């Protein structure tokens, strides 16, 4: 029982990861794929931040009288990852707009049909 409580966060993060992954590989609409990718990213952040919390610890800002702090290093890593993630999303959405203007559709099946590429 302690084992389940101790690992519940990680399993939910993996469940969200797999939901995002499923959205990317099984749906044909390009915007929905990008949203699935974002769900995947957020769940990876949840996994990392879960590994950095300390029970009874405080936020990593040095204050008087606090002895136990959470681990600040994954926070730095995830901060960078969030910003890089939004840059990637913006670029992906710009590409979707150009694909719509070139092909007239953003459904993957119709794009493959127009290009005869599958």
């Amino acid at each position, binding site marked *: 029982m302690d084992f389940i409580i101790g690992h519940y966060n990680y399993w939910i993060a993996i469940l969200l990861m797999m939901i995002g992954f499923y959205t990317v590989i099984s749906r044909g609409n390009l915007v929905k794929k990008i949203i699935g990718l974002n769900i995947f990213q957020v769940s990876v952040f949840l996994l990392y931040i879960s590994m950095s919390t300390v029970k009874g610890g405080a936020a990593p800002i040095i204050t008087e009288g606090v002895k136990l702090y959470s681990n600040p290093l994954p926070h730095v890593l995830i901060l960078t990852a969030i910003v890089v993630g939004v840059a990637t999303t*913006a670029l992906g*959405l710009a590409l979707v707009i150009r694909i719509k203007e070139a092909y007239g559709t953003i459904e993957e099946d119709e794009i493959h049909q127009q290009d005869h590429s599958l």
Partner: protein
Amino acid sequence: MTNNIILRVVSKSLIPLIIMFALYVQFHGDYGPGGGFQAGVIMSAASILYALVFGLDAAEQVFPPAILRILASLGVLIYAGVGVVTLFLGGNYLDYSVLADTRIAGQHLGILLVELGVGMSVFSVMLIIFFAFAGRGRP
């Protein structure tokens, strides 16, 4: 959306507060949660709110895209430039201790300048991206 009086009045009262909050987050990043990234994104959110309520043309007059491009490049230049200055002053690249007389003052100055560069760059890039998306639909 300029015809909707509630939106106009509320956003006119809120946008200065949002900008002030962005500046607070930028300069108090040392003592509380915050820093360059959060401040840049909050400031760009204020500008996006202005563009949504008052129209894209009015927003492009307040923040001309040419100025935004200069600001974005300036932010990156400030960050890399701090590193080059420390090189010339005798330390390693981005070694803030040589920027002032004492080590702690040098670190404070270095972190302040670097976060300023980051905030400027993130604000301008987010606004450039938004203007590019919103301006594409205009004939």
